[in-house]
Each structure stands twice: as structure tokens, then as C-alpha cells.
């Protein structure tokens, strides 16, 4: 790697159950303006723009092209899109900056889950031959993983409730969170998962700006340098995988350099409580790591943005001097099928 690349700014919406009064671009635009304002950059100054979103949430084809109105795409810009969480858009932007073809990048992601039924919508990402025709919803698949962990003796329902309670207590300090403070653990949705084990359904958006080398130092007092970033995927067949482990997360973390030195903070994209148990094991965390000080995905889960928010939250802590070395994780697909790990560091103080 010949260039150092950093997250220099982060912004997100207040995440809400519904945002009927706003179109996607109306929801996204204030976040784009905020992240640009933080650096003083204008659209014309940005070398590369990349976004993550899903047409299936909106129920309309090419919905991301409408969101581009909020960027200001005239005169023409260099732009790309991933039909995935914005964390993967950030990976593409990071790669672009590594090539030297751009010095700055704007990465954004958004999702409005409120118009549809997200449990049903997410079935459409499953194997279309053997699995999708059965319509197993996202909570059902996460519940299979939770039961596998319980059977393996790695957690139990009270421990899962404690993960939820800790996350939502941490979210008390997060003005953007959708669920915060004492939240009832609730009834079973799909046993063994209760409402409290599941992420809130909501709408939201996030954006970050990346910059390379000296440009990063000009734009941010304490850039969050990306020391490593990697993403890995596992077999799509759930019955082929060991659901109690996440070898793809471990491998991505290893390739991102996460195990070279301890991290002080981790933002994990674990929409379901049991997934935090899997990730902690895969990442070999001990109690010294502050996990999800933002409240994590259990406090706010705008689909397609929640992973990018993990990177943004980790970076923002470095910007504020609350962390020196942080790990950010994003996931996509059922039961932690795909995992991305980034390691971020601030300059020594």
C-alpha cells in the first residue's frame, strides 16, 4: 500500500421508524450537506462518489439514480453504486483512492425500510432455488443461528437479553439512535429470539468522506486512518456453514491487521443479539474492548446504511480522541454470510 487513506468526516440522520414525509433524496440530502460542511468541500471537489442502497427496499427499479439528485451530478462526476451496505461502497472508494485516480471520495448509503415489510423483502436475497420459495424471513434465519449457539452452550436467553440491554443503554448517549434506554425484551418473534433481540425497523442515511495522505490532514484535525480493510464471504447454503462461528469475519480481520495489536473500540454490525456472541468469538475480543459504544445495530438499523455507520462511528471516536485504534465491522446476507472488517487508527498523541 503506497497511500494512507483516512475517514475524515461522518454524518448520519436521526433514525426513525417511518419517514413518510420524505422521499429518499429528501432524507439523504441533509446528511450529504453535513458531511461536506464538516470538511468545507463542495461536490465539485470530490474525486469519486460511491453509494450503497437497495431497490428492493424502495420497491422500484434504479431508485439510487434518483438519490443522485442530492449529490449534484452536473457537471458530470465520477460515480458508482453497490446494491449492498454502504460499507462495501466505502471499500470500492478506498480501492479507487489507492489507485491514485482520486484524492477524496464521498460515500453514502441510505435505506427506507418503512414502505415495505423488511422481513419479507430480505427473503429475496436468498438462494432462489432451494430457499427463497419457502419464504424464511430474516428473523427466522437469525433465530436458527441463535438456537445453534444455545445448543452449543455458548449463550442463553438471559445472556442475549443482556446484550440488548447493554446496547440500548449505550445508545442513551447517541442522539441519532432509534431505540435507547430500557427496552422491554418482549415476546418471541421467532423463538428463541424476542423483539428485544431484533433490530428496530427504520429509515435512515449516512455519509462519510475519505481522503488520501496530506489531503486528509488538511480536512481533519485527527484523521481516522484505514490501516487495513478486507471482506470475505461464506457458502450461501446455511446448512453447509457452522452457524456458531464466523470464519469469514476472522479471516477478514486477520487480513485487515486486526490481530496485530489490540483495538480499544469495536463497532460491530450485529443486527441480532446472538450475532454479537458469534462476532466476539471470531474476533477474539476480551473485556478490554469497548463494543458498540454507539448502541450498534440494535439501537438503529437503517438497512444498507447500518454497516457504513459502524465505520463512521468508529472513525468519529478517533476524530474526537476517544479511541486510538478501532475495529469496524459490517455484515450482509443471512446469519452473517458476508463480513467486512476495517481497522482505523488515529495519529499518536
Amino acid at each position: 500500500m503506497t497511500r494512507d487513506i483516512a475517514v475524515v468526516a461522518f454524518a448520519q440522520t436521526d433514525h426513525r421508524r417511518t419517514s413518510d414525509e420524505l422521499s429518499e433524496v429528501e432524507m439523504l440530502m441533509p446528511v450529504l450537506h453535513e458531511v461536506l460542511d464538516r470538511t468545507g468541500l463542495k461536490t465539485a471537489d470530490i474525486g469519486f462518489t460511491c453509494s450503497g442502497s437497495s431497490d428492493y427496499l424502495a420497491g422500484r427499479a434504479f431508485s439510487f439514480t434518483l438519490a443522485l439528485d442530492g449529490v449534484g451530478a452536473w457537471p458530470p462526476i465520477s460515480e458508482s453504486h453497490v446494491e449492498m451496505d454502504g460499507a462495501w461502497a466505502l471499500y470500492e472508494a478506498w480501492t479507487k483512492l489507492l489507485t491514485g485516480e482520486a484524492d477524496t471520495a464521498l460515500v453514502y448509503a441510505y435505506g427506507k425500510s418503512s414502505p415495505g415489510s423488511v422481513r419479507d423483502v430480505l427473503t429475496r436475497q436468498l438462494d432462489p432455488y432451494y430457499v427463497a420459495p419457502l419464504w424464511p424471513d430474516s428473523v427466522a434465519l437469525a433465530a436458527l443461528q441463535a438456537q445453534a449457539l444455545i445448543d452449543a452452550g455458548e449463550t442463553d436467553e438471559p445472556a442475549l437479553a443482556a446484550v440488548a440491554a447493554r446496547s440500548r443503554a449505550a445508545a442513551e448517549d447517541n442522539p441519532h439512535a432509534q431505540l435507547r434506554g430500557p427496552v422491554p425484551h418482549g415476546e418471541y418473534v421467532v423463538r428463541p429470539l424476542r423483539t428485544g433481540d431484533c433490530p428496530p425497523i427504520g429509515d435512515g442515511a449516512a455519509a462519510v468522506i475519505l481522503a488520501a495522505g496530506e489531503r486528509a490532514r488538511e480536512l481533519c484535525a485527527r484523521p481516522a486512518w484505514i490501516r487495513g480493510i478486507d471482506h470475505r464471504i461464506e457458502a450461501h447454503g446455511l446448512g453447509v456453514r457452522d452457524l456458531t462461528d464466523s470464519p469469514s469475519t476472522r479471516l477478514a480481520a486477520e487480513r485487515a491487521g486486526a490481530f496485530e495489536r489490540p483495538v480499544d473500540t469495536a463497532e460491530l454490525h450485529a443486527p441480532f443479539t446472538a450475532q454479537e456472541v458469534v462476532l466476539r468469538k471470531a474476533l477474539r475480543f476480551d473485556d478490554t474492548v469497548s463494543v458498540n459504544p454507539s448502541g450498534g445495530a440494535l439501537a438503529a438499523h437503517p438497512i444498507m446504511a447500518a454497516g457504513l455507520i459502524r465505520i463512521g462511528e468508529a472513525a468519529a471516536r478517533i476524530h474526537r480522541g476517544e479511541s486510538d485504534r478501532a475495529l469496524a465491522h459490517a455484515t450482509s446476507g443471512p446469519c452473517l454470510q458476508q463480513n467486512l472488517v476495517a481497522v482505523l487508527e488515529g495519529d499518536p498523541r
Partner: protein
Amino acid sequence: MPEVLKAPLVVEFPFTRSLGPVQSAFLTGLRERVVLGVHTGDGRTLVPPVEYDPVTAEEIRDLVEIAPTGTVTTWAWNHAPRRGQPLDTPFAWALVRLDGADTALLHALDAPGPEAVHTGMRVRVRWAEQRTGAITDIACFEPYDGEDAQPTGHTGEFEDPVTGIVAHARLDYSYSPGRAQSAYIRALSDRRTVGERCPSCRKVYVPPRGACPTCGIATGEQVEVGPRGTVTTFCIVNIKAKNLDIEVPYVYAHIALDGAGLALHGRIGGIPYDQVRMGLRVEPVWTEDSRYPDHYRPTGEPDADYDTYKELL
């Protein structure tokens, strides 16, 4: 703020998918009440079978028959079945490792309640009465405490193999167009056309989407435009669209309404198709109870000068 507009939106597709040799054999087997797995290079048997080894990515197609009995490897109790799921009464989702297989198959398990289900329990396939060559040919699994079923020695060769499936998908939404488009649609109900002006470049967008795509900033100032406008460009449509009650040929045009900063689309009527021209002055024609102009017709004014609309092409 006026009440936000909302309307049901249904997205529905019959996805037609072709099958590879392994998927074809597996799904044909289900139609014939035979379960097939596939051997991998490292000696494992995958059920359901795939065409490429998940470890080595090598192509595999060494099929083997598997018993219709197996063991639950994990499960989850679904007390409120959702549309499209295999059973409409409460059931368990289960991963089942069939006897002879090294991997598990996801399906529903019919059981009276969660206390009747545990990891490690024995189950067997309950076949659907109507089978077409699809994963739903397995109606579900059911508890089973009899002897292990034995494979029949099937070769995996079928006379009339299934080569494709049709996977119906339906998603229901409640669509809300947001603030700017809601205002536009509300104005249309009064037969007015309302755009929004960009505070920076002063362009008026019709229909408005709440943002100026040039400047990347919010638009908010509402501006009534039209009703008359100018044809900036057009095409002649010669192919009749399915379910469209318009005789061909007809003219589809870009129309810059007076005061608008860009053109919108509309059909031109009330004039022979081969007499429509750039610069033609038109006005909307509303039909009874319509929610938007049915088409635009000539006003009879002199054509607009090219210089007045050349920026709007």
C-alpha cells in the same frame, strides 16, 4: 403540513429460472419422491446438492441417493407463519441433516408446539400431494421415531427431468412519494401543475423531486407553471404497447410548460401525427375524473421561436 400521500404498491414477478444438471436432478427427484445429494472432492455429501464444491469451487455432479429421514441440527419456533411459508399453522423452521448427508437442508417442521421439538430429534420428509419439481414438493418435515429409511438405489437419472422453475415473488409496499412529489400530485387534483425552483440556479423543476440535481441542494419554492407549453422534441410511436388503449401511430413528446426549467413527457393529440413539430404550442386536455392530463393538443398559437426553448431540449 398537509397529510402525506400514501398508496399501496405491489411488486410481483413470476421469475422463470433454468436449472443446471445437479439442481435439475435434485428437483426432479423430489417430484419422484427421491432425495439426491452430491459428493464433493473431499468425500462429503451435500444435501441440497450444488454444482460447485463450496471449498474448492470445482464442478461436481456425482449424485447419490439419500434417505428421506434425518436429524434436526438446529431449529426455531415460528408461532406466526407468514405469507408464502410452507405451513399456515405454527411450525418450526429446521435445518435437517438427512441420513447419509454431511450438510443440512432448511425446511419447515410440523410439530404441535416448541416443547415437541429439540435439536437431535428424528424427522422424515412429508411429501406434497401435488409435486412439480420444486423445493416445495417437500411439504415439510414431521417427527419420526421409526426405523431409518433406506435409499432405494436410485441412479439419479430421470426420463422427464425438470429443467426450470417458476419462482413467484410478491412484495407489498405502502408507497409515499415524499414532500415535493406529494405537493405536485395534490396540485394536479386541482388541474394545476406545480414545480419547485432551485434557490441557487433558479431552474424550475417539473415534476419536482425535492432536490436540484445540478446544484445538489433542496428545492422548496413552489412555482405554478403552464398550463400551456411548447413541444421541444418528439417521437412517433408505431408499436402498440400491451394493455394500452391508444391507436398507433401516436406522438410522444417532451413539453416545456411555460415557466418550467425542463420538459416533461406527454402524448400529443388533436393533430395528425405527421404534423407535430418542434416549437408547436400545446395545452393539456383533461378527461373526466382523470388525475393527470390525458394528452396535450395544439393551442392554435404561432409556433415558439427556437431560441425560446433551445436550452430545454
